[in-house]
């Protein structure tokens, strides 16, 4: 996807825009989306750590983008998403999520995702989810 089209994808989603998300890469069932740390997204003021819900939103958007980039996809919606929080994201650091749509059936797409801050060797969170898979009707 050309860079402008990719950013259009984010700009078309008001909440993704509100969180300042940027689509870094997308294609063939894979997507990478990142967002900056922001004081407004903090969950625990004592630590300045970003709220888990903001990380969920990033993972959900990235998972949906991965499904939409799977060949033959027309539309998608999240059925369920489980997030495991490995560690607190370091305040001030950008968070990047990578999602992979690793299997699709006629109606369902299966996704796994990881998120990390600037220490890319230690994930902040991992996620697994099921999404609806609306496909182009085959002739």
């Amino acid at each position, binding site marked *: 996807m050309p860079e402008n089209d990719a950013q259009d994808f984010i700009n078309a989603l*008001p909440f993704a825009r509100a969180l300042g998300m940027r689509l870094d890469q997308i294609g063939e069932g894979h997507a990478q989306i990142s967002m900056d740390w922001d004081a407004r997204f903090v*969950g625990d003021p004592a630590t300045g750590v970003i709220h888990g*819900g903001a990380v969920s*939103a990033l993972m959900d958007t990235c998972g949906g983008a991965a499904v939409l980039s799977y060949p033959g996809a027309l539309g998608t919606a999240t059925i369920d*998403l489980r*997030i495991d*929080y490995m560690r607190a994201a370091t305040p001030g650091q950008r968070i990047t999520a990578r999602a992979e749509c690793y299997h699709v059936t006629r109606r369902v797409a299966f996704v796994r995702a990881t998120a990390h801050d600037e220490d890319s060797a230690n994930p902040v969170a991992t996620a697994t989810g099921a999404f609806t898979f609306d496909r182009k009707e085959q002739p």
Partner: protein
Amino acid sequence: MKAPEPVQQVKHRRDSALATLVGAVPYAGFLGIQFERHGDELTAVLPYSEKLIGNPILPAIHGGVIASFLEVTAIIELSWAMLWDELETGRLTPEAMADNLPRLPKTIDFTVDYLRTGLPRDAYARARVNRSGRRYASVHVEAWQDNRARLFAQATGHFLMPQRKNG
């Protein structure tokens, strides 16, 4: 026997403790989440706003907003339940709480079921602490819009409890 505390005093104490707890979470304010209280029962309210939309064609509330709303509700309910006895017995005052904010539970995992499309209108949620031990807690949250019985999302999460000195 001690005279019962005047009702306005009780309400003021509980409401200011809740306002301190919720006001300390910037992300809850960013989403516009408010809490209504009846006795110890909390209901979270998410007033609709345009920035919460994920799918502008339907339009539908973003799945990430729904997950965030449920997780904020779970953490506030769990913290509220954790602090309730200390606040009621006077071991903790709202003023002391504001000066030294309590540490919040940390999410270990959180699973959201998206049952129906989130419509562009207000949403409500209530959390139930199914188990709360010294270290770990399990919380279930339900969210609805127009009808309490027609949930549009639910979630279960596990949390690591903060260690409280006198708790």
